[in-house]
């Protein structure tokens, strides 16, 4: 805390930073900063930054965990916490040094620009963010205070709903089809394809599709499906499912763009601060802080580091390509900055890494793939000539929502027993069975009847079932 400062000083620096923001062409929502102390910061962190949120014990747990880590000095607090809202809301910790505040402000504008422009966030309706979280909070509190419902029942349902909240559609930029559109789709799919050799081929028989089937096409939104098809749920229960679903949907774009988003903000805070002509003392502190943020985590993956390197490499390839790269890009290539802005709008982590993580860069980042072998975790692939594609594929499987298993509702009335039949789209990774069992018990709680999940366990197709009598599993043929 070398420098004493007040709000006015922060305002002056903010004005200088905004000049840079404008000069670079970043396009932001109006921004609001709130100064807070470390206790408030811990509180915001536990509730994903939201100034108001519905109560649930898991947030208390998150708080305890954060506080323990903080108190024992295992982890510091983040410098910055910014909410995707319009106007965007960010917190500044008042105990931080002036340089850290400047760094944070610049970083926040990077996120702000990203929230406003990346296509993933179009579905989040940022102008309603704070209001809807607040409304959710007061609705849940009303249910808790309602003597006919009470905290036990609300928690009972929320516990279960939280367990499957991320089992939902991932690409929110694509509109969900209506029931009528789904019906059309099924009918069209049932039509035999056009055959140019009709005269010599036997005409394929038309098989009438079963339009009474629920769902007509597999549904990924588990909570919404249960809300709409379990007629034993009360209105308050349906409302809670909606609330949990909406909150999960709000956070999906952030999960999907973690590396891009952090990399983008880091890239811009660096460029902005480099242009601010800081006094020497602050410049030194900036270098230290910046390097703390972007240091690689050994045996982990620091999204700030990986993201920053990717953005920097992307700009270099367009502005100062090597001769090979120039040839590959062709004569009419966009400038580096144009390319950056285009990518920040149109990509998510998976596509970003797939398109822009090069073999060379992977080697520079020292990426490797690991796998558990018996007792140990062993490095299986390194980005050499043979291995880099595999490392990249493994990486792509783990970023964003791809770290979460894909599960669809296949049938709401399996065997005419009202069993909810789910299918896990197995991609080589087995489910964690203990977790699957417990999560199925939560689904059973929500569906209020038997639930079956088809998956693959150790290479065998298996059915995990949760009924009133408990959990069982059997192999399928």
């Amino acid at each position, binding site marked *: 805390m070398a420098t004493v400062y007040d709000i006015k000083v922060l305002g002056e620096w903010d004005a200088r930073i905004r000049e840079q923001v404008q000069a670079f062409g970043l396009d932001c929502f109006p921004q609001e900063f709130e100064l807070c102390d470390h206790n408030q910061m811990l509180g915001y962190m536990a509730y994903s930054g939201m100034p108001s949120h519905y109560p649930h014990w898991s947030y208390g747990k998150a708080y305890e965990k954060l506080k323990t880590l903080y108190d024992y000095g295992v982890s510091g607090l983040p410098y910055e916490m910014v909410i995707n809202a319009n106007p965007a809301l960010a917190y500044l910790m008042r105990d931080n040094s002036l340089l850290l505040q400047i760094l944070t402000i610049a970083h926040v504008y990077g996120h702000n620009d990203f929230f406003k422009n990346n296509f993933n966030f179009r579905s989040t309706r940022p102008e309603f963010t704070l209001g809807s979280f607040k409304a959710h909070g007061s609705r849940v509190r009303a249910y808790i205070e309602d003597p006919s419902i009470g905290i036990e029942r609300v928690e009972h349902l929320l516990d279960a709903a939280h367990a499957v909240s991320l089992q939902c559609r991932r690409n929110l930029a694509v509109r969900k089809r209506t029931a009528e559109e789904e019906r059309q789709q099924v009918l069209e799919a049932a039509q035999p394809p056009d055959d140019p050799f009709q005269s010599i081929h036997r005409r394929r028989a038309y098989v009438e599709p079963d339009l009474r089937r629920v769902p007509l096409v597999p549904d990924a939104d588990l909570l919404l499906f249960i809300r709409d098809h379990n007629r034993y749920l009360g209105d308050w229960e349906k409302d809670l499912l909606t609330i949990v679903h909406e909150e999960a949907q709000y956070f999906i774009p952030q999960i999907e763009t973690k590396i891009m988003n952090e990399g983008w903000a880091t890239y811009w805070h660096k460029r902005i601060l480099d242009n601010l002509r800081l006094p020497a003392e602050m410049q030194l502190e900036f270098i230290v802080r910046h390097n703390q943020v972007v240091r690689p985590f*050994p045996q982990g993956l620091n999204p700030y580091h990986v993201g920053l390197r990717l953005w920097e490499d992307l700009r270099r390839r367009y502005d100062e390509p090597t001769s090979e790269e120039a040839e590959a890009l062709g004569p009419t290539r966009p400038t580096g900055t144009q390319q950056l802005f285009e990518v920040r709008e149109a990509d998510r982590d998976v596509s970003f890494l797939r398109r822009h993580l090069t073999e060379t860069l992977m080697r520079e980042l020292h990426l490797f793939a690991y796998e558990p072998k018996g007792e140990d975790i062993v*490095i299986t692939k390194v980005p050499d000539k043979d291995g880099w594609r595999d490392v990249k594929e493994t990486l792509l499987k783990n970023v964003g929502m791809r770290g979460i298993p894909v599960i669809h509702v296949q049938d709401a009335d399996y065997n005419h027993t009202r069993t909810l039949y789910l299918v896990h789209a197995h991609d080589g990774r087995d489910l964690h069975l203990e977790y699957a069992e417990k999560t199925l018990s939560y689904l059973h709680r929500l569906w209020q009847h038997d639930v079956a999940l088809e998956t693959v366990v150790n290479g065998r197709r298996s059915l995990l079932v949760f009924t009133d009598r408990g959990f069982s599993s059997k192999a399928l043929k």
Partner: protein
Amino acid sequence: MATSETVFRPFRAVDAGRSDRSAGDRLRHRQKVRQSIRENIADIIAEESIIGKDRERIIKVPIRGIKEYRFVYGDNAPGVAQGAGDVERGQVIGKAEGSGQTGQDRAGDQPGVDYYETDVTLEELIEIMFEDLELPDLERKRLRELAAERTSRRKGYRQVGLRVRLDKRRTVRAKVKRRLASRHVPDHPRDDRGRFPFHQDDLTYRHVVTDLKRESNAVVLCIMDTSGSMDTMKKYLARSFFFLLYQFLVTRYQNVEIVFIAHHTQAREVTEEEFFHRGESGGTFISSGYQKALEVIAARYHPSLWNIYAFHCSDGDNFDSDNQLALRSARELAEICNLFGYGEIKPLGSRYYETSMLNIFRRLEADNFQTVLIERKEDVWPSFRAFLAKERQTAS
């Protein structure tokens, strides 16, 4: 860039003071942790390491039930991470599950990270344990009723009372005072021998109030069969049970004594060390243990002063000829004890070809007598609850 100004909202200490917004959720979480301990108490108690520890000792208790489960990938899922420098194929970078977590930023929830242990002292654990024991009415009465004792205490003086409580000294002083006061009264009546007489008002009696005093002495009689058939496992189960009983009574009484009686065909009082560790051989006369207990009670723990809890652990392998005597002694014991229990320890599978005392003790009908069957360590806690429970249930 948007045209509107950036807003800075200053820090307000008032808000900070009010901002403990997570307090309610933290409280709920802590309640959950406690509840989780309570639900798993049978498992925790069954852990060998806890038995026989002192109460200040801190125990690590794994917390289950407050994990937030989701569908996540299991052990065979590969991941990608950054190395510090050059890495090679086949290099071992950590241990699977538990220590050496790798890929701290792997997307999705990591199972295992959510699992944590909490420290509780044995004291707290016992508190949680017994909080859970909803003491039934009858049992509560049984704990308290004998704990009350009548004593008497002097409390001032009265002018009426029993002749035996007449305080002669004060009576005479009252008379002397009255005589001095009446010096100037002429013709004060005298008795026929010319003495100044006692008057009804002079009589002073000691006033005595009876007092209900809570007696908080308890004695635990641990009676165990140490015949050849009691192996280490059986002794361990018995020990767990005695441990619980002792801990429970310590929470209820100020002064708890413990007596160890080991018996085979003969019984003797032994130290704790001998009780649990010294194996003996030979046959079994259960009655001998009960007779010894009765002797000890008669000699040192009179039922009017002591709350007596007796518990007997055996594998039920008694000599047939002793059964009648054992039943008779048990009945006697039941009469003077607050609670008397018999635990038959038969590790699973053995009970079908061995004789059992459960059938014989079924004939003993006393409200404060209870039989339980302990087959494995998980049974200890339920049996203990059953022992203290109101309704008498024969072990199945």
